[in-house]
């Protein structure tokens, strides 16, 4: 009987080609959109984690209250000791000391006179330490536009757009005007070793990355760090684990009565991030629900039209002695077969598109020149294990649902009218 049904599906284009095309397209779009959303949102989260917050962020309590201002006067003193403590408490986490700062960059001409000045945001990270993973987290080597990475103290990186705006080339010097930890005025000369493009317009407009030792020296922050970031050993943001680490650390420090005692926050505690994470978690399910609903309606209609077209066939089959339930089951089998075939084709196409776009990406930097959000300028879908099966959910489920609903008419068919109906 299955062979008979398969023969019918293959011979009848209206029963096979149209539903298979619809299922293929639906599955492909589901896979693509899921991977796209996962990719874009995942990259935004990763970008935020690597640049700004880590998966877990340790600050002093008062610093945490004003963390958006990067109040370095409230920084962690003797932060190295705290890092050692953290390594003991949470050995699976990689800890990195950082200082964030805002400053003014003064670019001199050949005579040493100011040629231009611009506000910059800065990252002080461990660029020169042996085995430091910070250059990797900032993807510095790949982001390098001109020059090289810093190799010794006194060297730093500038964002390419900033360097281009002020005509600065690698090897040239500029002065960073800032504020010391005690609120004093500080100015330090740096040599631009290279320029980088972050891929995020908000950063590319004006950023400086320097070694943390140089910045400590520049801002009188010896032994201090604004923040200590913790990175979990996953390729994605493991929210549950991050929250667990945060909880354990805060519990350990809860009894510390020092005003400047450390406090842990997770990426989720970044303003707006909780909503963003919830959105990214739910958007996939909402999308699949919408797709399943839309496809079920389309396939339901296709099933109804097919049912009308096959009205005579079902009538003949009932007259020949086939049980209505058997016909209904055969309709569902057909739906399952076309659903699986369509889903397989859709998955192959969807995965191919995802792989292709994942390697090339779509450059949207042109559209984000004035953006202030930390977002990647090249968007690409994520290659995840989910993409291998997610297309089957709308593909098979919608096909079955559509045909199950359309096939109800078989049971409503009155056998007593068969002769009249079949004589038309």
């Amino acid at each position, binding site marked *: *009987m299955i062979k*008979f049904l398969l*023969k*019918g599906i293959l*011979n*009848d284009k209206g*029963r096979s080609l149209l539903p298979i095309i619809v299922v293929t397209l639906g599955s492909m779009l589901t896979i693509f959109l899921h991977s796209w959303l996962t990719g874009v949102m995942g990259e935004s989260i990763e970008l935020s984690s690597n640049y700004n917050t880590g998966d877990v962020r340790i600050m002093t309590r008062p610093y945490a209250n004003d963390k958006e201002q990067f109040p370095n006067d409230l920084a962690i003193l003797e932060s190295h000791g705290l890092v050692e403590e953290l390594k003991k408490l949470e050995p699976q986490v990689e800890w990195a000391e950082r200082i964030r700062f805002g400053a003014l960059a003064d670019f001199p001409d050949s005579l040493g006179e100011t040629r231009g000045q611009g506000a910059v945001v800065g990252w002080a990270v461990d660029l020169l330490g042996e085995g430091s993973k910070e250059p990797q987290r900032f993807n510095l080597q790949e982001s390098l536009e001109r020059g090289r990475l810093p190799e010794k103290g006194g060297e730093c990186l500038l964002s390419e757009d900033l360097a281009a705006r002020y005509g600065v080339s690698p090897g040239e010097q500029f002065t960073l005007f800032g504020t010391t930890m005690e609120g004093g005025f500080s100015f330090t000369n740096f040599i631009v070793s290279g320029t980088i493009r972050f891929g995020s317009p908000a950063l590319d407009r004006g950023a400086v990355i320097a070694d943390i030792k140089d910045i400590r020296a520049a801002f009188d922050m010896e032994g201090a760090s604004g923040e200590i970031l913790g990175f979990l050993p996953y390729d994605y943001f493991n929210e549950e684990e991050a929250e667990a680490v945060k909880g354990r650390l805060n519990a350990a420090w809860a009894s510390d009565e020092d005003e400047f005692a450390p406090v842990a926050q997770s990426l989720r505690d970044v303003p707006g991030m909780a909503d963003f994470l919830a959105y990214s978690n739910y958007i996939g399910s909402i999308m699949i629900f919408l797709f399943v609903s839309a496809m079920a309606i389309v396939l339901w209609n296709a099933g109804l039209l097919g049912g009308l077209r096959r009205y*005579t*066939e079902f*009538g*003949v*089959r*009932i*007259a*020949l*002695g*086939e*049980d*209505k*339930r058997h016909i209904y089951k055969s309709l569902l089998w057909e739906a399952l077969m076309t659903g699986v075939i369509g889903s397989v084709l859709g998955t192959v196409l969807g995965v191919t598109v995802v792989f292709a776009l994942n390697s090339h990406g779509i450059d949207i930097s042109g559209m984000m020149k004035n953006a202030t959000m930390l977002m990647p300028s090249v968007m690409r879908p994520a290659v995840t294990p989910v993409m291998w099966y997610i297309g089957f959910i709308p593909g098979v489920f919608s096909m079955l649902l559509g045909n199950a609903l359309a096939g109800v008419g078989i049971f409503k068919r009155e*056998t*007593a009218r*068969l*002769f*009249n109906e*079949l*004589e*038309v």
Partner: protein
Amino acid sequence: METEQIVKLEGVYKRFPAGKTEFTALNNISLAFGKGEFAGLVGPSGSGKTTLLNIIGSLDSPSEGTADVLGKRINTLSHKEAALLRNMGIGFIFQTYNLLPVYTVYDNVEFALLLQKRGAAERKKAVMEALEWVGLTEKANSKPSALSGGECQRVAIARAMVKRPQLVLADEPSANLDSKNSHHIVQTMKRLNKELGTTFIFSTHDEKVMQYLDRIIQLQDGMVVNQTGL
């Protein structure tokens, strides 16, 4: 010697709702058909021929009276039991052939046997034999769209006969055929009736068919008004 009765109707009424009243399609019909009969129900449109075929074919049940077909009381059969009765014992031939267009001639004929869950070898033998009866073995792999009307009706006969039913019901089988084909298909059925002992009950008002019938039951307004050939 009295022949075995395979259809027995006693005091059969069939009423259909018609607005607030009822329309009586069959009015106290009592008939019996023996094994191997080649009989026809004749009468004008609305005389109750098709309604009677529906009841004999277990597609409908009487409003009143009893209908026994192949040893089963139609009145009490469930949908599933009625389907099984049609599957195992009754063949249908329709005016408009009603072949499944996406399948070949072979597949169309084989379908009745698939429902009976018969083995592949047995099915093949039976299908080829049925096609031989109607002279269409060479068209086994053709689609219905490639056949003439007469050929389609012969395929329908093969489909009805392939499972060797005891009873075949044919509703106006020659209505869409020309004179030559009408004679041909009725002759074919007559031959099968003789060779296999299958009972044929026709609904017809085609004179060409009537001349082959052994028994003619004339219906009018749901009642049997005349019978010949008893």
